[in-house]
């Protein structure tokens, strides 16, 4: 009898094993939903697939007469704009700060402790400050996302850049490279795939901060919508929205992974570290 640690599933085996729990969860949901509906046909806690489809048609395929827009599309555009701005600001400042922190010992000595101190502040705790200082508009929401993910990304990138082997740094200098040329030709290109990796890890927290900000003060957005309809126990809207948010998050992750493979093939080459 082979040891359990040596039994590896084949390709089709992996697909089957991976799909089985998902199907079981779906099945369990359908059974539970049907059971509740057999007792109370108007049950709202576990809506049937038909209920959810009806809600989806209402939210995603028809114009809301009050706002004149399709709710799902308006919510998605508003949320993605905030997310994009927040992530963009965080990524841009990470690139600059992470590079100089990782590359220049004098900057690391100056700003390192400050960045480390900021990184331990729980971003949500700063949200009231942001609302007070920046008002309840878009700025505070975008700022929360940027402030929420930037410190981790900066510290991650700085450590990646300072981990470039000293041999490479010395070699570049013996080839006549100045500090600026080392930053531009050596550190920046090697930092890019690491930045994308840090960004992929930060997407989850970015969504958390977005939905938190929208739940508290907003009038449009995916997070706003699910917290709004919560008042009516509208699980038939919330569950499809959660699935939609997850789909968006997965698509962003896949896109970033693709960009990294497409533009930085050397970082994915066989045997690359």
């Amino acid at each position: 009898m082979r040891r359990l640690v040596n039994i590896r599933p084949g390709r089709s085996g992996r697909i089957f094993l991976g799909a089985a729990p998902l199907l079981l969860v779906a099945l369990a949901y359908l059974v539970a939903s049907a059971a509740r509906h057999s007792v109370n046909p108007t049950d709202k806690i576990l809506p049937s697939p038909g209920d959810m489809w009806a809600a989806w048609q209402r939210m995603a395929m028809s114009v809301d007469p009050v706002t004149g827009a399709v709710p799902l599309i308006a919510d998605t555009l508003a949320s993605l704009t905030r997310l994009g701005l927040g992530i963009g600001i965080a990524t841009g400042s990470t690139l600059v700060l992470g590079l100089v922190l990782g590359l220049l010992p004098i900057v690391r000595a100056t700003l390192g402790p400050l960045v480390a101190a900021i990184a331990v502040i729980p971003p949500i705790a700063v949200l009231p400050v942001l609302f007070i200082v920046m008002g309840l508009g878009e700025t505070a929401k975008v700022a929360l996302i940027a402030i929420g993910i930037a410190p981790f990304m900066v510290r991650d990138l700085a450590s990646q850049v300072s981990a470039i082997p000293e041999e490479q740094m010395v070699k570049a200098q013996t080839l006549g490279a100045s500090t600026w040329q080392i930053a531009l030709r050596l550190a920046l290109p090697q930092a890019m795939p690491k930045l994308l990796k840090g960004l992929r890890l930060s997407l989850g927290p970015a969504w958390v901060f977005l939905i938190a900000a929208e739940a508290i003060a907003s009038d449009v957005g995916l997070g706003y919508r699910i917290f709004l309809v919560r008042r009516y126990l509208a699980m038939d809207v919330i569950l499809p929205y959660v699935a939609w948010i997850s789909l968006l998050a997965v698509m962003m992750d896949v896109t970033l992974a693709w960009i990294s493979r497409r533009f930085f093939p050397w970082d994915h080459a066989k045997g690359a570290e």
Partner: protein
Amino acid sequence: MSDPILSLRDVWVEYGDKIVLEKVSLDIARGSFVSIVGPSGAGKSTFLRLIIGQEAPTRGHILLDGAPLTPEPGPERGVVFQRYSVFPHLTAIDNVAFALDCAGSMFLGRLYGRRRKAALEEAGQMLEKVGLSDSRDAYPAQLSGGMQQRLAIAQALIRRPRILLLDEPFGALDPGIRLDMHALIDGLWREHGLTILMVTHDIKEAFKLGDRVLAFDKRRHDPHAPHRFGSSAVYDFPLTGKNRRPPAEILALGAREPAAA
């Protein structure tokens, strides 16, 4: 020795109260191939770091072509390390052209148009010299260890450094590949009239390639405070065509256990 390319005058390197190198005075002749051997911890690497400019002597002077050595790495000293010498994000040809890019474009660090074409032409010739013409568009991760070292040598030679410093360049390679690399570096040395300093722990390699062998070790040893005595070049062998066999005292040096640090 008239007109040495590199002179060390009474050089000491100390870390706190630990003395690594003491009283090193040497002249390196233009066009020589100096092998540096010695047990682990005898300051071979510190010696090389001094010449590269990665650290400065605590006392003493180092002169390159009669002028004090700048205390940071520069293009007049080329270097090949045992590992990590090439840039993983650049193809072979771009790795070699990197130095030309830096020299020709201060702000962009990259040449364009006709000048880039000329740089690629020059880099291509250098790749051909080290036998990498077929891999010009490969990334280092796609090259074998020996090919990566060939690339590192081509990269280091394109700016025609005054001295080429090799830090255990073939230490991580298979024996067969190592022989090919010996032939390559020997050929380049003769063809270009290079001045080479090579640190190695392989004594046969040192005597095969060099025309002078320096052995670093501690002259004196205090068993109660081993760190208070530093190393210097205790043996200095000029080699002619005949005496290519390492003497017994050198072989004993290599076989000895590393000095307690």
